[in-house]
C-alpha cells in the first residue's frame, strides 16, 4: 500500500498548495484559477476512497459548473483591473474568530476520525449501486430533488428578470 499512500499525499499536496494560492493570491483571477486544482485534487481523493461516482460528479459540477460560475462572478466585479486591491484582507479580528471556530471543528474531526482504511476499502463501481438506491429505496427524495431544482430554476429566472429590468430602466420601458 506504499504507492497508495504516495498518490494520496500527492493529491493532498495539490489541494493544500492550490488552496493556499486561492487564499493568498493578490489577484482574484489567479485565485479562481487555483481553485480548479483544489477541486481536481478533491476529485482525486474521492477516487482513492473508492467513491468513483462522487469523483465524476466533483469534476462535472464543481470543475465544470461552479468554477465557471465563480470565474464569471470574478469577472463581474468592478475592481477586477486593480490587481493590488482585488483580494485584500478585511476585518482581521472577525476573521480570526471564525478561524478559531473552524479550527476547533476541524481539529475535533481530525482527532476523531480513523484515518487508515487499509484493507477496509472495497473498490467497486458505485454508479449502478447509487442508481439502484436512488430509483428504488430513495425514490421520493429523488423526485423531490427535481422540485428543488425547479425552485432554483425559477428563483434564478425571477432574480434575472429583475436585474435586466433594472438595467433597462433608463432605456425604453
Amino acid at each position, binding site marked *: 500500500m506504499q504507492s497508495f499512500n504516495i498518490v494520496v499525499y500527492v493529491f493532498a499536496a495539490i489541494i493544500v498548495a492550490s488552496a493556499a494560492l486561492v487564499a493568498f493570491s493578490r489577484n482574484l483571477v489567479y485565485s479562481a484559477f487555483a481553485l480548479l486544482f483544489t477541486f481536481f485534487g478533491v476529485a482525486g481523493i474521492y477516487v482513492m476512497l473508492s467513491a468513483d461516482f462522487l469523483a465524476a460528479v466533483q469534476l462535472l459540477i464543481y470543475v465544470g459548473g461552479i468554477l465557471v460560475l465563480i470565474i464569471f462572478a470574478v469577472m463581474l466585479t468592478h475592481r477586477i483591473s486593480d490587481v493590488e486591491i482585488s483580494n485584500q484582507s478585511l476585518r482581521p479580528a472577525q476573521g480570526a474568530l471564525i478561524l478559531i471556530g473552524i479550527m476547533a471543528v476541524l481539529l475535533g474531526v481530525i482527532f476523531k476520525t480513523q484515518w487508515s482504511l487499509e484493507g477496509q476499502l472495497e473498490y467497486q463501481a458505485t454508479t449502478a449501486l447509487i442508481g439502484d438506491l436512488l430509483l428504488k429505496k430513495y425514490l421520493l427524495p429523488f423526485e423531490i430533488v*427535481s422540485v428543488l431544482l425547479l425552485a432554483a430554476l425559477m428563483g434564478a429566472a425571477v432574480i434575472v428578470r429583475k436585474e435586466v429590468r433594472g438595467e433597462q430602466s433608463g432605456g425604453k420601458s
Partner: protein
Amino acid sequence: MELIDYLPIFILLIIAVLFVGGTILVSHMVGRRKYGKEKMSPYESGMIPVGDARRRFSVKFYVVAILFVIFDIEVVFMYPWAVIFKKLGVFGFVEMMIFIAILLVGFIYIWKKGALEWA
C-alpha cells in the same frame, strides 16, 4: 473496479502535464526572443483588440452559467439511472420521465420569462 483500473487515467494526466510543461520549457530555452509591436499584440496578423481584456463581463453570462449548473445537476442524476436503465425496465423510465417533466416545467417557465433571451 479496482484502483489499478485508474492507472491509464493517471498516466494520461502525467503525460499531459509533462507534455505541456515540456513544450513550454523547450520553447522557452530554444526559441529566439525578438519583440516587436506586432508580435506582442494579442492576435498577430489578426483582429485588433478593442478595449481591455480585463473589463467587466455582462451579467447575462452569469445567468447562463447559473442555468447551466442547474441542468448540469440534472444530468448527474441521469448517470446512475442510465447505467441500470435496462434492469429497471418501464418503471425506471416512468420515474425519470416524471423527474424530467418537473424540470421541463421550470424550463418552459424560464423560457416564457425570457431568461434565455440575449436581450
